[in-house]
């Protein structure tokens, strides 16, 4: 008996679906001419990136990370600082207004590198990634895993949020940073409501998705999936498990950092709310509902939930949270692999179905030549 391969697991089919998805998001600006709507769709793209980053570390690596807001938030602050300094003048007006209100007389040393746009963006990406490398090394070397790691990441997130709130003169505390002008790259302003901003986010989403997909298909990705199930076995095969875990955690952090930078480019604002625990847990819910073992599933999960929140949330107000909660419970209980897992099941049935029909075919009749 030959069972056909489940289409869900076919690599060409997977890439075809990815291609279709990329084509869809690339076509959006042709239909959507309203700047505000385009900006909102771009923001969904950011949420998609965050869900993808969760899918990488939680779905593939088994590292439940409830503190992804660390990378997102730190990078967002880095980007906001860069954009803020673009509006300052080294000679006539070197200090951002909120610092003057907090009676600072000099620009703090850690704000200095943000005079340079390139350096600022680089720092916004490198600092969170390095933090993930250090924190990951500390945790994974000590073999902290599962719920214990989740709690540690959550605690670390809260610590960062508190720190930023407390450093009012340097971070503007709860008010956050709101750079007065859009990001200027190579002498051109990037209008957050224009097509250019959308294309940048779209390109970023395509790049991280393709990169993540290739990563999961590499030997590295396979080892990471193996250690999700049995880290001990992987260790006895000769792999440094802590190093692999740190790598996948830091890569996921880097993607969240990219998302943080692009988010500020679109919103022109950042506050400690971006390091709020509910936001980071929300990312895990997106990936969980969409399917944490599917990169595209996680992205679509983010689109679905955030889209639902924007449209249904306005209509139902607090009831929306109850609906979301109920939906999450149903998915966790009946679809542990999320909506992508549902698709996998359906296609699995479809693959078996033709084999069943093929069996009663009369054996004696030659099929050829008819």
């Amino acid at each position, binding site marked *: 008996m030959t069972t056909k391969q489940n289409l869900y697991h076919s690599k060409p089919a997977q890439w075809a679906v990815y291609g279709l998805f990329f084509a869809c998001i690339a076509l959006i600006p042709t239909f959507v001419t309203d700047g505000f709507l385009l900006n909102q769709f771009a923001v969904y793209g950011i949420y998609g990136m965050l869900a993808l980053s969760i899918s990488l570390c939680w779905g593939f690596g088994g590292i439940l990370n409830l503190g992804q807001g660390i990378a997102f938030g730190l990078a967002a602050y880095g980007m906001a600082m860069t954009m803020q300094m673009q509006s300052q003048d080294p000679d006539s007006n070197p200090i951002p207004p909120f610092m003057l209100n907090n009676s600072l007389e000099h620009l703090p040393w850690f704000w200095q590198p943000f005079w340079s746009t390139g350096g600022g963006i680089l720092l916004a990406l490198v600092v969170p990634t390095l933090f993930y490398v250090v924190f990951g090394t500390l945790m994974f070397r000590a073999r902290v895993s599962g719920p214990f790691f989740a709690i540690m990441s959550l605690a670390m997130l809260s610590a960062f949020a508190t720190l930023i709130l407390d450093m009012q003169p340097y971070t503007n505390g709860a008010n956050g940073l709101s750079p007065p002008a859009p990001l200027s790259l190579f002498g051109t302003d990037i209008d957050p409501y224009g097509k250019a901003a959308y294309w940048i986010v779209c390109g970023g989403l395509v790049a991280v998705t393709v990169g993540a997909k290739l990563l999961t298909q590499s*030997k590295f990705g396979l080892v990471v999936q193996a250690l999700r199930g049995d880290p001990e076995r992987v260790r*006895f095969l000769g792999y440094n498990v802590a190093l692999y875990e740190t790598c996948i955690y830091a890569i996921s952090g880097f993607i969240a950092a990219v998302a943080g930078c692009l988010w500020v480019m679109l919103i022109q604002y950042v506050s400690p709310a971006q390091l709020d625990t509910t936001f980071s847990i929300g990312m895990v819910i997106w990936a969980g509902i969409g399917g944490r073992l599917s990169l595209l599933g996680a992205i679509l999960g983010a689109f679905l939930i955030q889209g639902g929140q924007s449209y249904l949330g306005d209509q139902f107000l607090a009831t929306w949270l109850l609906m979301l909660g109920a939906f999450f419970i149903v998915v966790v209980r009946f679809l542990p692999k999320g909506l992508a897992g549902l698709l996998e099941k359906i296609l699995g049935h479809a693959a078996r179905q033709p084999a069943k029909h093929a069996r009663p075919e009369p054996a004696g009749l030659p099929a050829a030549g008819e």
Partner: protein
Amino acid sequence: MGVLEIRDLHKSFGGTKVINGFSLEVTELTLCCLVGPNGAGKTTTMDLITGRQKPTSGTITLRGDDITALSEHEIAQRGIGRKFQVPAVFRELSVRQNFEVAYSREVNPFRNMLRRRPPGFSEKLDEVVSLTGLKDRLDVEAGFLSHGETQWLEIGMVLMQNPAILLLDEPVAGMTEAEIEKTIVFLNRLKRTNTLIVVEHDMGFVRQIADVVTVMHMGAFLAQGKLSEIEADPRVREVYLGEPEV
């Protein structure tokens, strides 16, 4: 000189001495069976050799290199492979993927990001698949294998690793008679190319595979020799075989 030498190994958990001055020398290309009553410290010895536990004192050397302080993955990279008592395979991955992970010639994560199948993989896979008889099962998810097949898969994974020394902890536990027969043939062939240490309870099985039998008792070395010599040893009869047989 032995390929693996254990000298005066001690291990205590809290105040309980589990390994108590155990020494062992394993000769290259032999199959050494480690036997002993429950609680003799056989599995703990395996844990100490593979780095899962660290000894309180004593040294373990592999071809003259001290490996006592190394971590699990470093010891594995130096060529000690281990099959667990309860078969440990990656249940969510296919049999082929299990073998791919086990082929650990390249362990650097960054180099592994850039490629999928390192050179020499398919030759090794063919070899191991024909040895373990899993040819038709390569695309099956490992969680769906029978118990016997799972045992074979894990043995195959350890072989993919290409270890100089294989540690097998009760390899035939839960196998059917036919599977045990197959394992005996297999191990006897394997000891031509590898050094093996097998922990086993079943003396019938030990008789058919062992070159050397080492008896442990209360965490210490009790006796070593051919199975016939061991069975004749009155001390061994007392502690392990129970009452002297007629």
